[in-house]
């Protein structure tokens, strides 16, 4: 039966994929995609909890809405940063951003 744990598991998979994307992508846009995946995983969790916990039904949706809005904002800023980075280094490879290498 499809209960809460299933949705949570789906959310966990998405989260993990997002983290793995962060860790393995060299393209900055790829990293950004990982961030989107993370956020989506978290949103699924929120909505699942809203569904399965009636006292949380409004809050869950509200949080999920906020997350979506903030994710969009953050994606915009991140893309602006990535574009700046691309303009300065002439490459979108995050491995080029090693000026802070110790």
């Amino acid at each position: 039966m499809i209960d809460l744990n299933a949705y949570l598991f789906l959310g966990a998979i998405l989260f993990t994929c997002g983290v793995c994307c962060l860790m393995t992508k060299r393209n900055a846009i790829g990293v950004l995609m990982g961030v989107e995946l993370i956020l989506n995983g978290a949103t699924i969790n929120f909505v699942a909890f809203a569904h399965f916990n009636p006292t949380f039904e409004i809050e869950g949706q509200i949080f999920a809405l906020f997350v979506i809005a903030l994710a969009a904002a953050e994606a915009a800023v991140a893309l602006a940063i990535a574009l700046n980075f691309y303009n300065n280094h002439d490459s979108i490879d995050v491995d080029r951003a090693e000026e802070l290498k110790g």
Partner: protein
Amino acid sequence: MSVYAVLFYVLAGLTALSAVAVVLTTSIVRAATWLLFTLAGTAGIFFLLGADFLGAGQLLIYVGGTLVLVVFGVMLTTQDPRLNLQIGVAEWLIGLVTSLALLGVLVVSLAGLQEPPDAPEGPRSLPPSRQLGAVLLGDTRATPVAPLTGTPQLNYYARVRVHYLLPFELLSVHLLVVLIGAAYLARAKRRRVDAQPPTSSSAQGVAP
């Protein structure tokens, strides 16, 4: 196997597989495509969970906004298609191990969760956008109080005691700031081709 379960498995599978594909694919455009599918699948999940407004919102904002932004970003940051931004095997290994560890941690923690006390059986729909809007606007009295005949057990409106006006306002200010910031960051700049700072060129005269 109810329709619900089948729908769930299909949508969850789509979403999960698309997410994995995002990770594993080498081309950024393909990753974007797979992301599209992931986001769509997520929207489907939302609809399945009864959050209609949220699903619609996900499709609108994420797929129609954020993903387009991502695609634009991909377009604007193209480089030589022959360049293949790959990482080494060791790094893949480390990443996988770490991700799996994280997955393990998450699974262990979610396995220990207890069922919520009044979890509903079967599908249901979550409060519609009307209530969401009222909550956001801070109106705790979504509907007038029921007459003195008593309250039915599921009085959604009476249970709404919170309002999210402040976070809403904060979010709007935040979005304004982000808008300005992003616009500034992404303004058109002259590409610097020479290494000399522009102020010292007049002082030096003939370059050696």
